[in-house]
């Protein structure tokens, strides 16, 4: 059943558990299209679980349970008709540690489109070039596309992972602390890239770095012990947090 679509991703009353342990509690929010939403919060507050619930990556974990609704383009992603593989094609993900496959740069980018039925090299090669250009990596690797991907530097690997996620043209991009394992210069490059990408993609980024969230995001969510404490325009939260726990976090008193 289609409902009137207001945002690409809407979350209603989401609660999750691992076994008996409640991780997220009654979260409701709408992620703006073509914007970066930062999910902030101290370690263990459920940020990553939230992100992985959106592309159903938690399904793999045996004792995971959830209640509530997540709508992607108006359709319930946990609904009975939902196709988890198609869902994950529409929601790309970039992980905390760069995890390119142990194969060539070219094959890393080709992997996704091939899964979804693009077999012809005449179609795949332009996808490789386009994706690497979008991820601002093309100029650095165009002469060595057949080199093994793990030989790249950490920052290049992470941009390759972004290119790999973009290769299947997802409208939504999830990023789980995408720069926290990188050096400052690589991190800066990727932050700039994220700002660039939001023109075309809805980006949801988990971070525990408040300054980074303020630099990069348009909207921000603050999660604390599984509850959504605050969700608003980043500038508003930065200038005047409504809740004292948010203030405590952004001023560094908890974290």
């Amino acid at each position, binding site marked *: 059943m289609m409902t009137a679509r207001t945002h690409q991703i809407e979350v209603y009353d989401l609660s999750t558990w691992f076994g008996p342990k409640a991780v997220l509690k009654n979260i409701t929010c709408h992620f703006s299209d073509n914007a970066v939403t930062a999910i902030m919060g101290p370690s263990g507050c459920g940020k990553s679980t939230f992100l992985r619930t959106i592309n159903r*990556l938690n399904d793999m974990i045996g004792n995971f349970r959830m209640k509530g609704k997540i709508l992607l383009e108006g359709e319930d992603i946990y609904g009975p008709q939902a196709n988890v*593989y198609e*869902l*994950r*094609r529409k929601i790309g993900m970039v992980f905390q540690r760069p995890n390119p*496959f142990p194969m060539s740069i070219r094959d890393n980018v080709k*992997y*996704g489109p091939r899964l979804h039925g693009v077999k012809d090299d005449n179609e795949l090669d332009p996808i490789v070039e386009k994706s690497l250009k979008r991820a601002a990596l093309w100029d650095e690797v165009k002469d060595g596309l057949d080199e093994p991907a*793990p030989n790249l530097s950490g920052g290049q690997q992470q941009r390759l*992972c972004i290119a790999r996620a973009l290769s299947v043209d997802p409208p939504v991009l999830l990023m789980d602390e995408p720069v926290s394992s990188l050096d400052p210069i690589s991190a800066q490059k990727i932050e700039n890239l994220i700002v660039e990408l939001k023109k075309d993609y809805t980006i949801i980024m988990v971070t525990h770095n408040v300054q980074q969230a303020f630099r990069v995001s348009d909207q921000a969510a603050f999660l604390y012990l599984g509850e959504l404490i605050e969700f608003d325009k980043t500038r508003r939260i930065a200038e005047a947090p409504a809740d004292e726990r948010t203030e405590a976090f952004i001023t560094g008193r908890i974290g």
Partner: protein
Amino acid sequence: MQDAVGKFVLLVPAFAGSALIILILTFLWYEATPIFLAPQGGPSIVIQPIWDPNRDLYGIALFILGSFICTFLAIAMAVPLGIGAAVFLSEFCPPRIRTSLRMIVEMMAAIPSIVYGLWAYIVMVPWIKNSFAPAVQSNPLTAWMPWFQGSTNGLSVLAGGTILAIMLLPTVVAVSDDALRSVPSSYREASLALGATKTETAVKIVVSAAIPGIGAAIVLSLGRAVGETMAVLMVTGNSLQIPFTLLDPAYVMTSIITNQLGYAFVFPLWRSALFAVAFVLLMMSVSFTVIAKWFVKWGMKTRGLV
């Protein structure tokens, strides 16, 4: 100071280990020299097929061929089956079943080869003779196949290859399972997050990443297969002939040594020829090990893992 003591104490076993290998190799070479130098022998014995010590004929090609065929059959059966089992164990099996299956696999590896041989001799050989051979030779789908021709008493390269395959299986499963499980789960997550199914992820990412380890497992079990003696000796028929079909008997390298060493002292060259067989065997195992190392290195390099 303490380090020096530790270093010295550990140097002794380390040195003793490698010294032993070199000594064995030297000894084999020393014992095999006469046949390689004698006019009746020479290096060409490895390609001469006739073995008849009473007529001074010491060709060992038959044994090399027999070993190769049995080993090839064993690998051809054990590898696809073993890798399949390992992929199931590591990627699809529920954890509780996995533990018990792994235990059974490890127990299979510990069964003495004479037990496998006895079972094959009592169960498999008669089955090949009474059921398998009549069935494939009367079925029009398989009766024409050249490798199923000829009469058989069950003692055959097929029996040898199959029992070897059964014996190799636990090693292939265990080593491949370890190789698959050492593939970081971050690769699996990246693949799933792109919309791959679990099967696509297992085949295209996990197995591909584990190829160096799996390849090494195969090459190492090759070494085990050519060197295995007891079970093969009991079921291959030990007949001095070229096996043209799967149902023909054969004579493998390890069997000729075991069977004839006891009375080979009659002619010095006979004895020496048996050592030549052992020497070839050892060289084969060594080269399999070297190939395994080289393969792992190559695999890691093309995958950028070193």
